[in-house]
């Protein structure tokens, strides 16, 4: 059977596939989880991923940008899978999740620093709806280990000795910290893995435009001014994914800069390049300096023709 390269576009998912005689490589974009941000597009070493702005109909909200993947360029390396803040990309080999770039230590994994201390969770506190992406599940168990269906139905007596468990779908968590703020002190602690800076120049915004706000997946990361005329960022919650930037209709109304990405420590040219595209050459040389990787730094500097600080 000849090699087949397939691309299937369904309502829920966009899939690329290589079907070999006894091996099957597949990259699936989960359209329900994808927010149309810039991360995969910038990170892809083969420039196989493109963002397409969606046309807007008057009076309606802006639509998130659409991710398209190029079957001829994709090599199923899985870097998009590793870096997607929302866990929307998945590479499988023969049906099994496979990230050989991580296995072979050729690309670092993101570090999602999310601490949950269930013991600090006061009884009776409703935790279920604090995550805008619905990634947190709080479950209670009776002292003898039986799951509690609805905590509100228990008597005070019954509530004694309950055990609580917090499960977080970390792979899909962009670390916006909303939960940390919403939850009582100390239960959840989240550190962002992408740091950066976001600025909106309201004077440059088209009149009445709220496109960025329309597509922002994190409630509160962008907000409307009191007179409901302008959009402002809130750096506390912004995850610097760039979904807003991807739809902004004017050139420099929205400035988004990523400065660092928290990741496992290892040497990788592919990482350096991804980082350079996601942040900037300056940030890369900084990171290389911190790592003491003289050779790699020299090569970046040689290419760019300037000396790092």
């Amino acid at each position, binding site marked *: 059977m000849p090699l087949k390269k397939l691309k299937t576009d369904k309502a829920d998912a966009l899939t690329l596939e290589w079907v070999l005689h006894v091996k099957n490589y597949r990259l699936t974009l989960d359209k329900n989880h994808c927010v149309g941000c810039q991360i995969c597009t910038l990170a892809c070493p083969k420039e196989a991923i493109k963002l397409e702005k969606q046309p807007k109909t008057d009076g309606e909200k802006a639509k998130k940008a659409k991710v398209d993947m190029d079957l001829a360029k994709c090599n199923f390396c899985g870097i998009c899978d590793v870096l997607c803040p929302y866990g929307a990309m998945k590479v499988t080999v023969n049906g099994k999740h496979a990230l050989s770039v991580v296995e*072979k230590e050729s690309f670092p994994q993101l570090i999602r620093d999310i601490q949950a201390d269930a013991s600090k969770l006061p009884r009776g506190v409703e935790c279920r709806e604090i995550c805008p992406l619905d990634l947190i599940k709080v479950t209670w168990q009776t002292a003898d280990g039986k799951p509690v269906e609805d905590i509100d139905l228990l008597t005070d007596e019954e509530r004694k000795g309950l055990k609580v468990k917090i499960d977080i779908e970390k792979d899909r968590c962009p670390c916006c910290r909303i939960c940390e703020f919403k939850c009582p002190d100390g239960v959840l602690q989240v550190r962002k893995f992408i740091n950066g800076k976001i600025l909106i120049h309201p004077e440059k915004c088209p009149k009445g435009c709220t496109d960025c706000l329309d597509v922002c997946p994190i409630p509160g990361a962008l907000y409307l001014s009191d007179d409901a005329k302008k959009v402002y960022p809130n750096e506390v919650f912004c995850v610097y994914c760039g979904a807003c930037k991807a739809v902004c209709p004017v050139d420099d109304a929205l400035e988004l800069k990523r400065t660092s990405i928290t990741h496992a420590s290892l040497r990788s040219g592919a990482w350096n390049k991804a980082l350079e595209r996601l942040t900037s050459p300056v940030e890369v040389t900084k990171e290389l300096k911190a790592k003491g990787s003289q050779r790699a730094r020299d090569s970046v500097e040689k290419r760019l023709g300037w000396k790092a600080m």
Partner: protein
Amino acid sequence: MVRKERKKREPRKVRIGVFVCQCGSNISSVIDVEDLTTYAKTLPNVVHAENMNYPCSRQGQEEIKDAIKKKNLTRVVVAGCSPRLYEPTFQRCVSQADLNPWLFEMANIREFSSWCHPSTPKEATEKAKETVRMAVAKAKLLEPLQPIELPMTKKVMIIGGGIAGINAALDLADMGYKVYVVEKTESIGGYMALLDKTFPTLDCSICIEGPKMVDVGRHPNIEILSFADILKVEGYVGNFKVKIRKNPRYVIAKNCTGCGECRDACPIEYPNPSDMNMGVRKAISVPFDQAVPLIYTINRDYCIECYKCVDACGAREAINFDQKPEEIEVNVGAIVVSVGYDMYNPEDMENYGYGKYSNVFTALELERLLLAAGPTGGKVIRASDGQKPHSVAFIQCVGSRDVNKYEYCSGFCCMYTLKHAVMLKEKYKDAIQIYVLYTDMRSGFKGYEEFFNRAQKAGINFVRVKLENRRVTEDPETKNLTVYGETEDGKPVEVEADMVVLANAAIPRNTALGLAEMLGIPVGKDGFFKECQPKIRPTDTEIPGIFLAGACGGLKDIPYSVSQGSAAAAQAASVLGRESWAVEPIVARVNEDLCSGCRVCESVCGYHAINVEKMGDKELAKVAEGLCRGCGICSSACPMDAISMPNYTDTQVVAQVRAVLGRGEKS
């Protein structure tokens, strides 16, 4: 200058001898040779005429030499057969009698008279007289010429390192010539390096080819230029200039030890063409373990530049991401072309379901499944479910012997199908049913018919079906297949099988045409390179110094390709062994006073042999004597009448025309 002096020293009147050949009864049964001889004696300047049975025989040649001496002949005309066959013989003969070989002329009265007019002997004889009259008229005006000597570069290039090229290279290198092997892919070996076993002996293919590949790699006289493309070929026998691009591997050849640690560190896989894309290789890897030269290559189409390979390579420092393509020029005296063949992709013959049904394979795919080092570790399994098939149907002549596709027979498919069928049957015995649906079973050559017998005895079912009305269908649930066909007399044939294997046609290399153009050698109607003469000069091309070997000149199995490799090597050696190469002096001559540099000659020359160059303050046509084939097209195209062909000058041709029109000599 030299020519003029010679003319001065030749005050004698032109004395022509005419020798009429009887050619057994080939000529004499139609033409009245006595009458012709008597007639020849009456022609101007003819001082001697005789007829004899075979002037080409040794005795005949002696008689001609005698006559030259006794009658003081200054020109010789033989009225016999075609100059293409015997002119060299007679030229040698007259030169032995101290006559310049170009003072010889041939009149073809066999092909032009006796053979084509057998029922009208009288008219045939008249025509023969006219032919002789023309030859005599021209002979009178012939001028003595000197052969042109070209220097010889004692090096040779083999283009294509398959089994044919490997044999040519080793033979020539052993004879002491410097050999360049230019191979397009990363490794030499060709198809044979991809095969599991070889018919009819079923010995392991790479086990017998591998040592030869290693020999090529190690031979002090051989330089392999692999992963390289031929860009341009210039020059002529003894003096070819070949421009080659060495494509970057991003691995420094001399530093790479072939250890494979980089491959182990590499995270990226891509479909391996050597496995017919059924298996994968790493973004830094070799196409197969026995590759020669054993140098790793990074495929930048897939590489993500993580530099894990750089770390793994460590102090060897063999990896260089900045490598650029490198162009080199190589001078050689002779070239052997051995670029092999491609395989036809049968997806467009929809009736076979290849590409549509997952359990339909090509023969080469099956070959890779049989191979222990192949993508399945030697397990023949279906693509649909990974299960071993219980029945396999082989379909022959898929694209071959089909006037709508490839009219020729691909030559080796019958035998490799027998090989595959026997290997499967002898391994799985009663657990497998095998059907071979064939049009004719072609098992010529040593040991092949015996192998066919072995297959029949092994319990393989042979079913003869015609090319027309063949069809494969699939059960969408089980993915099992049914093959429909018809016997020669129209009876339906239906075979159920878990797996179908197609013997798809082997076809000319897709690069063959481009290469042919660069080399100036023709390709035939079938798309394969054309030999100079298919029977007696099967490895010669029309271009002196360029030879063919193996499947690129028409499909051949391994033993045949090996023999051709050695044959081409011997041919090349017979060129390289000379101190210089003598060319016929019948090459275009440019009268520089008349030439206007208009380039018409340049545009009509099919051999790139005439080019306008700047000479002093004039632009003048210049002839590359090694390339000129003496066809004369430039001479007739030249608007200034500045180009002439020695011994085909206007004066000479006009004399012939006047002679045939009975106008006699121009006064």
